[in-house]
């Protein structure tokens, strides 16, 4: 039997999500409950609130409060070239196919602080596709989008990024793409000259048209099944026929209602093709 405390806490959390939805344009009601509870628990402690109800009170009465909660609600931890074998598969199996198009559109959905975007921009440059590609980098968190646009990462993370880059089949050295100063690494601004940064919600916004590749990794796991269905439906409607969808290493379209709109293109790397 669930404890009465856990039941009440679950109710408080649902009411908090309702309050956030009412007082802002953010709707987290379709997110996975367990990890949301964990992260909002961190917010509750950080803001010295005794309960989710107290957080809810602040959401209702302090218009500046929701933006402070957002980093807890949307935090996604990524790396440049995270899961190098994914980028290697894009390089060797997907980009040769994309090369046949005169112009390309790539959507990095849920781009957070931009690690995935810069990885793809470097990949497309090295494969000679950059000049005919437009990247769309979207997230619901405008602060994260600003960080993505700045392209500045802590220097401590660079060793990992470089190792990933090498394993992803990088053609030179990652250091060719950033300058290091004051404990930070700033990625070459020309890498994002062909990127449109945009505020977009997979929960409530509509499709981007005519994409050739959608990369959305480790975002769907934060959604419940209904919301996963919606997001994958958006990707389906956004992709050209035979366009590609890349998702996270442990994500799957298996339980998704849109699954039959896709075929497995590179199964181990979770790269699907729109049929």
């Amino acid at each position, binding site marked *: *039997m669930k404890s009465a405390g856990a039941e009440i806490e679950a109710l408080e959390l649902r009411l908090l999500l309702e309050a956030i939805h009412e007082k802002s344009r953010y709707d987290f009601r379709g997110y996975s409950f*367990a990890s949301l509870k964990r*992260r909002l628990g961190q917010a509750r402690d950080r803001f010295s609130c005794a309960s989710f109800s107290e957080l809810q009170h602040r959401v209702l009465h302090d218009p500046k409060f929701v933006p402070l909660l957002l980093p807890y609600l949307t935090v996604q931890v990524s790396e440049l070239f995270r899961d190098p074998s994914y980028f290697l598969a894009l390089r060797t199996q997907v980009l040769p196919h994309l090369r046949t198009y005169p112009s390309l559109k790539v959507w990095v959905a849920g781009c957070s602080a931009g690690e995935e975007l810069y990885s793809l921009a470097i990949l497309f440059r090295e494969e000679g596709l950059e000049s005919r590609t437009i990247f769309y980098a979207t997230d619901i968190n405008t602060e994260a989008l600003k960080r993505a646009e700045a392209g500045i990462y802590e220097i401590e993370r660079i060793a990992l990024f470089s190792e990933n880059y090498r394993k992803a089949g990088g053609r030179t050295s990652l250091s060719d793409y950033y300058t290091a100063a004051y404990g930070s690494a700033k990625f070459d601004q020309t890498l994002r000259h062909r990127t449109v940064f945009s505020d977009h919600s997979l929960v409530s916004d509509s499709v981007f048209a005519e994409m050739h590749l959608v990369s959305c990794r480790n975002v769907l796991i934060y959604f419940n099944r209904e919301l996963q269905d919606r997001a994958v439906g958006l990707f389906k409607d956004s992709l050209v026929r035979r366009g590609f969808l890349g998702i996270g290493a442990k994500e799957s379209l298996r339980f998704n209602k849109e699954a039959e709109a896709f075929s497995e293109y590179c199964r181990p790397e979770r790269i699907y093709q729109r049929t």
Partner: protein
Amino acid sequence: MNAEPPPAAVVIGASVGAIEALSLLLPTLPAAYPLPVLVVVHVPPDRKSSLAELFATRCQIGVKEAEDKEAIGAGMVYFAPADYHLLVEPDFTISLSSDEPVLFSRPAIDVLFQSAADAYGDNLTGVVLTGASTDGALGLQAIGAAGGMTLVQTPDTAEGETMPRAALAACPTARALSLEEIATVLNTETLSMPR
């Protein structure tokens, strides 16, 4: 009309020395073991975890790597994949997450245990085995607070003593048992849990 009995589960956390310890526990579970068993072992993030494959060949009970959004079934061992937290949703499905590591670990035992305690309440058995960190201590405490059964490998018998000691310190009502005794409890006492 028969009311559906509330689900029950076993959660296990282990770190250094995990494979040896789990090799003494999991193969004792019969093919018809009626509870799901969710396991977090600390594995390096850059390696594909082969734990599920390894134990599938050694166990009578079914073994698999947990998948996002799958329904938790009875009589199955689920391993957390490398580099993802494993959580139990209130509707007894699985969620994975790539949130920050906890105590330098992803997957983290605390994350599984705390979410499972919320979902299963007092129909949960938590087991902390050998390990060199303090992960699992807060999770076991949460299971105890929700009224679940709490078991810890006797520190003296563990390859890594730190983790069982931390768990016992955080959850003093937990029973310290040898691996053989834990196997016996899982094969007898947990079976009386509602399911």
